[in-house]
C-alpha cells in the first residue's frame, strides 16, 4: 500500500455525523415559498383542459407559459419539456406547479387540480415499441463467414430489469431570483449541467445563473440529469413569484419521475468451430429509453463497448437500439449501461462452457485479453492487465474452483452454488467527451495565510471526493490535509472541471489537481496569494470515431473479479448469500477506506439488482413506487465481504489511480446469478432472480 492510500478521517465526517450538514430540505430563506408539482396521470395523452381550484391570495401556478427562454431540458438534446404543453408522454411528467407558503395547503390544491385528457395510444415495453431514438452498430473481424462455417451456434436472450438509485435523500432544489440573476441551490452531481440547462430555459447569460450544490445525500447517477429539470422549474417559479421557491420531491414522486437504470433485452449469438472455440459473437442490445432520450445514447454506447468484456473474440458484431416507450425516461445509474452487458456476457460464456462440457472459468480463461490486444472497438489495451494475478488471489481467498467442483452434484432441499464474474470498466467519459465537450479546468488558490483552496465543480455526494482531492494536493505539497479547503461547489467561484460522473473525478480531475499542486510547489511563495489553473490534456490514444464506432473509447480500464457463494432452499426458492469475495485493480487507491466503502456499497447495490430489486411498469405505471414496495437490501440481507486491491498504477491518474466508483457494481449480478444457477442446475437468463422467478424455474 502506498503512503497516500492510508486512510484519514473524511473532511465532512463531523458535520455529517452530528446532523449539522445542510441538505437542501434543511435550508430556508426569508419569504421562501414551496412548490408542489401536478403531474400527468396518463402515459400518453393530449391535455384538453386544466381546471384550477380557487386559491387564496399568495398561491398561484407556474407552467410552460411562464418559461422565459426555451421549454426544453438541456441534456444532450433538449427534447423533454420542463412543463408539458399540450401532450404528455409518461406518467409523472411535470405539467404545472402550485406555489405558495404552506405546504399542506399546496398539497390540497395540487390534489384538486382537474385535468381533462384525450388518450393517445401508448407502448410500454421494449418488445411493444417500434420506434427507436438511438441506434449504433459496429463490427470487426470475420463475422458472417464465422457463422456460416460454425459447427455450432448458440443463441440466448437475456433480460435485465429496472434499477432505482434510491439515494436516501430525495431530489430537490431552491430557486432564488433577484436583480436579473437566478441562483439554484440543490442536491446535484453536476453543477455546470444545471447551469447550462437553467441558462437555456431562462434565456439568461452565463453571469446571470449561479448553481450551488447543497450537501447531497447520494446520487449514483440519479442526480446527473434530473436536477437540471428541478433547477429549471424552481428558477422559473422564483422569477414569477419574485421569492425563493423550494421544491422537494417526496419519495413516491422521486421513484415515479426520476431516471432509472434501463431495462434491457440482450441477444447473444456465438459461433463455435470444431474445436469448440468461439470464432465470432453477434450481439443485439435493446434498452428501454422511456419517453425521452435524455442520456440514453451514451448509456447505449457503454453497453455496446462492453459486450465482450475481458475476452478477446476474433469476430464481433454489435448493434443496439434505445427504444421509445411511454414510461419514465431512463438515464444514468452507476455502471451506465455496462451492468446489463456484463450480466448477459458472463452468463452466456458460462452457458456455452457448460454446453460443451467445460468448467466456466477454464473456458473463459482461454479468451482473457492481454496488454497490447485490440479492444472491442479496435482501440488498444495500452496498459498492463493483471487479470491472471487477480484470479490467483480470488481463488486463494474464495476457494472458487474447489467449491465449484464440489457443488456440481448435489441433492436434497438445500443446495449450494458458487459463481465468478470477471469484468472491466472503461474509466472516464465514453469516447471523445473529455476532449470535445468537457475540457476540464481546475484551480488551486493559495491564500496569504498559506491555506490552499481547491476550486473544482465536482461534487461530493458521499463518495468522498472532498477528502481524496485534498489528499492528492496535500501529498504533492507535503502539507497537512487540514490546510486544504474544499467546499460544495458554487459556479460563481469554481471553474468547470466537468460533471461528477463516469468514475472520472479522481482519474481526470484528480490528475489535473496533482499537476496544479506540482506547479504550485515549484512556484511556491509563502505569505503570498497565488492562483494556479490547469487545463485538461487528452492522453495519447487511438482517436474515437462515434460514426464508425471505432477507436479507444477510454484511456484505460479498471478490472474486477467477484465471487459469490449461495445456498438455495429449493422448496421455497429462497437464496441465502454465504460469502462474497472481490479483487479489484483500480490502479492505486487514494484512500483505502474510501475505496472499501465504494466496494462494499457498490457490491451490495449490485446484489440488490441481482436479487430483490424488482420494479415493473404496468402500462406505464411503476408498481413499486415506495420504499415499502421496492425492496433494497437491509443489514440483514448481507454478510461480511472479503475484498482486496492489486497494485497496478496508471500513469494517467494521480498517484496511479484509475476510476473505481462504478466498477464495484458491474460484475456482482452475474456472479450471484451464476451461483444460484449452479445450485439449482437451471440456466438463468434474467435479473432480478426473485424467489417468484426462481420458483418458476424449479
Amino acid at each position, binding site marked *: 500500500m502506498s503512503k497516500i492510500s492510508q486512510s484519514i478521517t473524511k473532511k465532512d465526517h463531523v458535520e455529517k455525523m452530528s446532523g449539522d450538514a445542510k441538505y437542501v430540505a434543511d435550508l430556508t430563506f426569508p419569504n421562501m415559498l414551496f412548490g408542489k408539482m401536478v403531474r400527468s396521470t396518463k402515459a400518453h395523452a393530449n391535455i384538453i383542459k386544466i381546471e384550477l381550484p380557487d386559491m387564496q391570495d399568495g398561491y398561484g401556478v407556474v407552467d410552460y407559459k411562464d418559461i422565459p427562454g426555451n421549454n426544453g431540458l438541456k441534456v444532450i438534446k433538449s427534447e423533454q419539456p420542463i412543463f408539458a404543453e399540450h401532450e404528455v408522454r409518461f406518467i409523472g411528467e411535470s405539467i404545472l406547479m402550485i406555489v405558495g407558503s404552506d405546504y399542506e395547503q399546496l398539497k390540497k390544491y395540487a390534489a384538486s387540480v382537474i385535468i381533462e385528457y384525450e388518450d393517445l395510444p401508448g407502448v410500454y415495453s421494449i418488445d411493444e415499441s417500434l420506434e427507436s431514438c438511438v441506434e449504433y452498430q459496429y463490427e470487426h473481424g470475420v463475422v458472417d463467414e464465422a457463422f456460416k462455417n460454425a459447427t455450432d451456434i448458440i443463441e440466448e436472450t437475456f433480460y435485465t430489469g429496472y434499477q432505482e438509485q434510491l439515494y436516501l435523500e*430525495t431530489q430537490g432544489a431552491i430557486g432564488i431570483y433577484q436583480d436579473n440573476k437566478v441562483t439554484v441551490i440543490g442536491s446535484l452531481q453536476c453543477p455546470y449541467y444545471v447551469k447550462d440547462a437553467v441558462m437555456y430555459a431562462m434565456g439568461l447569460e452565463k453571469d446571470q445563473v449561479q448553481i450551488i450544490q447543497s450537501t447531497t445525500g447520494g446520487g449514483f447517477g440519479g442526480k446527473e440529469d434530473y436536477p437540471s429539470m428541478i433547477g429549471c422549474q424552481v428558477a422559473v417559479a422564483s422569477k414569477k413569484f419574485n421569492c425563493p421557491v423550494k421544491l422537494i420531491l417526496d419519495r413516491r414522486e422521486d421513484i415515479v419521475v426520476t431516471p432509472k437504470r434501463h431495462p434491457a433485452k440482450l441477444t447473444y449469438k456465438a459461433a463455435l468451430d470444431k474445436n469448440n472455440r468461439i470464432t465470432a459473437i453477434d450481439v443485439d442490445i435493446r434498452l428501454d429509453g422511456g419517453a425521452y432520450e435524455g442520456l440514453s445514447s451514451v448509456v447505449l454506447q457503454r453497453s455496446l463497448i462492453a459486450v465482450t468484456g475481458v475476452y478477446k473474440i476474433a469476430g464481433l458484431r454489435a448493434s443496439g437500439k434505445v427504444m421509445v416507450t411511454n414510461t419514465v425516461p431512463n438515464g444514468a445509474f452507476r455502471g451506465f449501461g455496462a451492468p446489463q452487458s456484463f450480466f448477459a456476457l458472463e452468463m452466456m460464456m458460462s452457458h456455452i462452457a457448460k454446453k460443451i462440457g467445460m468448467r466456466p472459468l477454464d473456458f473463459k480463461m482461454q479468451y482473457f485479453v492481454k496488454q497490447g490486444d485490440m479492444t472491442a472497438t479496435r482501440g488498444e489495451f495500452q496498459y498492463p492487465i493483471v487479470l491472471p494475478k487477480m484470479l490467483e488471489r480470488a481463488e486463494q481467498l474464495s476457494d472458487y474452483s474447489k467449491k465449484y467442483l464440489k457443488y456440481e452434484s448435489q441433492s436434497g432441499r438445500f443446495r449450494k452454488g458458487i459463481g465468478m464474474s470477471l469484468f472491466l470498466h472503461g474509466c472516464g467519459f465514453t469516447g471523445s467527451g473529455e476532449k470535445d465537450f468537457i475540457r476540464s479546468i481546475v484551480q488551486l488558490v493559495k491564500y496569504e495565510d498559506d491555506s490552499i483552496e481547491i476550486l473544482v465543480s465536482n461534487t461530493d455526494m458521499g463518495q468522498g471526493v472532498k477528502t481524496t482531492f485534498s489528499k492528492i494536493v496535500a501529498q504533492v505539497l507535503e502539507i497537512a490535509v487540514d490546510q486544504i479547503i474544499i467546499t460544495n461547489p458554487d459556479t460563481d467561484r469554481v471553474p468547470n472541471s466537468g460533471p461528477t460522473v463516469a468514475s472520472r473525478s479522481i482519474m481526470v480531475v484528480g490528475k489535473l489537481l496533482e499537476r496544479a499542486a506540482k506547479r504550485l510547489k515549484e512556484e511556491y511563495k509563502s505569505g503570498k496569494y497565488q492562483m494556479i489553473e490547469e487545463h485538461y490534456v487528452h492522453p495519447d490514444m487511438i482517436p474515437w470515431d462515434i460514426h464508425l464506432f471505432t477507436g479507444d473509447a477510454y484511456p484505460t480500464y479498471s478490472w474486477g473479479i467477484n465471487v459469490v457463494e449461495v445456498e438455495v432452499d429449493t422448496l421455497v426458492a429462497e437464496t441465502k448469500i454465504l460469502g462474497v469475495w472481490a479483487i479489484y485493480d483500480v490502479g492505486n487507491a487514494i484512500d483505502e477506506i474510501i475505496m472499501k466503502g465504494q466496494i462494499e*456499497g457498490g457490491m451490495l*447495490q449490485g446484489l440488490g439488482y441481482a436479487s430483490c430489486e424488482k420494479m415493473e411498469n404496468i402500462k406505464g405505471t411503476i408498481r413499486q413506487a415506495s420504499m415499502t414496495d421496492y425492496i433494497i437490501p437491509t443489514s440483514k440481507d448481507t454478510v461480511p465481504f472479503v475484498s482486496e486491491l492489486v497494485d497496478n498504477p496508471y500513469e494517467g491518474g494521480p498517484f496511479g489511480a484509475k476510476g473505481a466508483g462504478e466498477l464495484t457494481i458491474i460484475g456482482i449480478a452475474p456472479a450471484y446469478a451464476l451461483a444460484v444457477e449452479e445450485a439449482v442446475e437451471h440456466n438463468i437468463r434474467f435479473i432480478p432472480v426473485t424467489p417468484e422467478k426462481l420458483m418458476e424455474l424449479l
Partner: protein
Amino acid sequence: MVEFSLNNEKVKYSGDPSKRLLDVLREKFLLTGVKEGCGEGECGACSVLINGRLTNSCITAIGSLEGTSVITVEGFKNTKQYQLLEETFAKAGAVQCGFCTPGMIMAAQALLLSNAKPTQEDIREAISGNICRCTGYNMIIDAIKMAAEQGEGLW
C-alpha cells in the same frame, strides 16, 4: 397542548396533534438532523429515541408524546457515547452521503443502551430498520462493534 422533554429540555406544542413528529422537530424546533427519507416508516432516516426506544418520527403523531422524553442526534451529540461513535464511525468509514447517519447513530445508541456487548448479529438486527444505500452496512456494523468494545462503562 402536548408537553414533553426534547433533548432534555421541557417543551410545549400547541398545534395540530396529528402532525408528524418529524415535521414538528424540523420546522418548529429546527432540528434538521432528523431526516425524511421515505415518509412511511421504512427507511429510518427520521429515527429518534422516545423514552430510549428507537422510533420513526415520520409515523409518530406529535399528540402521542405527552410526558415522554425525545432525543434526537442534536441532543445526543454532546455525550461521551456519541463522541466514541463519532470516532469509530470515522475509523470504520461508516459515513458516505450522511443522510442515513443521524438515524443510524440513534439506532446504534438504542442498541447499546439495551445491550452493551452486542454480537454482529445483534447489530445487524438493530439497524435493520435503517436503510443505507451507500455503505453496504458492513462498515457501519464494524463501527458499532468497535464502539461497544472500546466503550467500557459508557453503556
